[in-house]
């Protein structure tokens, strides 16, 4: 179908599509539907304004801002950098450890702090466990979008095991405030390594069960294959990252291509979508990339647990965090994509400006492009495959 022209912001439905039937002209009109802020499947408070022609979508315009909490403004008014970390937690509340790490990494690079190796290993273990937990949420809710209510509960049951590990270490289940500038807040408790190893052995058959139940189910494949195809060049042009980008076949993972911490010491593979059951870059590809990333995370965790060195996790935490005046942009690979923090420091104890580049925000911008020509039933699945968390989209 023809690409619609760029739409003005005060779009009015165009009643100039004429269909003919037996010599009589029938005037059809496109309908504007609002998939409002409260909706069971927009994963938060996202408003989608959909312009449909029958059941085919002509355009889908996301309206965001319902969860804006002024994170960047708050960060400027904190008395020290340490206080920004709880706020950074709350941006992407499903993948909190990764947010902490990105910000802490930015300040460490500005102050040129070398953290002990044990700290790096702990951070990797926590980030990968968090990646598994975040993907479990994404995959479970994706099942619900498709109509399968059961995999959601299986995913959450497995996620409980991970949250138990986190609670044992730092005391909180969702918003950790664990990874600090220069180290971590607590060392691993007694029994953590054994329990984490147990989790890895427990979790591997669960991935297989999830695949049998949902991923390779023919109905699910029929719903997600060839739907929401994101071509390679479009993905790169829109600055997509994370599973969105890798699902389109682009081999790009910041843990390998812009390395930070000790990821280079472990053996793992970057997963991309290959169009196994549909086109490269469709929703199924993004789904399978997330599932396989979970498997790779388990691999990384096992290797890290086996070779974690001893050390003092708090020896490098500075007494006063007072970076030199200057700016820095640091990016890490979170479950949603490339999370970047651009920090400007003016030499005082609190930041002058913190800008968060949220991956979900950037990934969401590609939604109108990939949902043109799809049906309304597909739109739910397309939004689900982008894997947005509104806290990160709106900050």
């Amino acid at each position, binding site marked *: 179908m023809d690409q619609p022209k760029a739409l003005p912001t005060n779009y009015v439905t165009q009643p100039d599509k004429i269909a003919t039937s037996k010599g009589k002209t029938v005037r059809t009109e496109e309908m504007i539907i609002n998939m409002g802020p409260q909706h069971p499947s927009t994963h938060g408070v996202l408003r989608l304004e959909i312009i449909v022609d029958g059941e085919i979508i002509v355009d889908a315009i996301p309206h965001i801002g319902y969860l804006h909490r002024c994170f960047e403004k708050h960060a400027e008014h*904190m*008395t020290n950098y*340490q*206080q*920004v*970390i*709880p*706020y950074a*937690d*709350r941006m992407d509340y499903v993948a909190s450890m990764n947010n902490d790490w990105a910000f802490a990494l930015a300040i460490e690079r500005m102050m040129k702090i070398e953290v002990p190796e044990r700290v790096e290993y702990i951070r990797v273990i926590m980030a990968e466990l968090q990646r598994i937990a975040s993907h479990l949420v994404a995959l479970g809710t994706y099942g619900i979008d498709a109509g399968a209510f*059961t995999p959601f509960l299986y995913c959450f*049951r497995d996620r*409980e095991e991970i949250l138990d590990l986190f*609670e*044992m*270490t*730092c*005391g*909180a289940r969702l*918003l950790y*405030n664990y990874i*600090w500038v220069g180290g971590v*807040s*607590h060392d691993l*408790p007694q029994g953590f390594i054994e329990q984490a190893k147990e989790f890895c052995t427990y979790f591997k058959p669960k991935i297989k*069960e999830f695949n*049998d*139940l*949902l991923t*390779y*189910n*023919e*109905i699910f494949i029929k719903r997600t294959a060839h739907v929401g195809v994101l071509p390679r060049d479009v993905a790169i042009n829109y600055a997509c990252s994370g599973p969105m980008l890798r699902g389109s076949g682009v081999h790009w993972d910041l843990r390998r291509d812009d390395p930070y911490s000790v990821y280079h010491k472990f053996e793992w593979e970057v997963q991309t979508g290959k169009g196994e059951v549909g086109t490269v870059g469709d929703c199924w590809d993004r789904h399978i990339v997330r599932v396989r990333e979970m498997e790779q995370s388990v691999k990384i965790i096992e290797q890290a647990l086996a070779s974690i060195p001893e050390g003092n996790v*708090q020896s490098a*935490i500075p*007494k006063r965090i007072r970076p030199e005046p200057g700016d820095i942009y640091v990016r890490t690979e979170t479950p949603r994509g490339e999370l970047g923090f651009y920090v400007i420091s003016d030499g005082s104890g609190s930041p002058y400006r913190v800008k968060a580049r949220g991956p979900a925000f950037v990934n969401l911008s590609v939604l109108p492009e990939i949902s043109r020509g799809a049906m309304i039933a597909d739109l739910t699945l397309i939004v689900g495959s982008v894997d947005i968390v509104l806290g990160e989209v709106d900050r």
Partner: protein
Amino acid sequence: MDPVRTYFRNIWLALSSIAIGMRITMKHLFVPSVTVQYPDVKLKLPERARNRLYVNIDDCIGCDQCSMACPVDCITIETIKSTPDQDLGVTSTGHKKRLHVPKFDIDIAKCCYCGLCVYPCPTECIVMTDVYEFSEFDRNNLIYNFSVMTPAEVETARVKAKKAEEEAAAKKAAAAAAPKPAPPASPPPVPPTEPT
């Protein structure tokens, strides 16, 4: 021939994957459930659990570190200097208390449970307990007042501190007018603490 083969292959794939899925759910029908029936059964929280704050006011030396560390400003502390003749005692960690603390309020509704107030406390008097059932009907009941000074004690301390301040100011004025100024006594510095 190819469309025909795809047609039958699709049907076969659909039926086999559905059968596999149904076998999984049937198996789960006989697995015991993982629900913990709260509130009859309560899970034991780990040692480091971060829930409601508690302040042991006897150990508080009024250094204000926790209040400054809080990112959401939920701790309000007021202190009154004590005069040298008052002996407030020693905390359980050996610090000498030199400040009265007439007001130590924590608005637990604002608290974000980050734990940043716990680390800087030199006497470890503010801790995060494992209490998570503390809902109230009235929001004002969520402002916890930890200070135990009665209004009479507060008034006495305030009066004494004011008098001491006036005496020190008078002394300073007299010393400034005198030919040889005596060096002013500097108050003992409160040791800065780092997060541990």
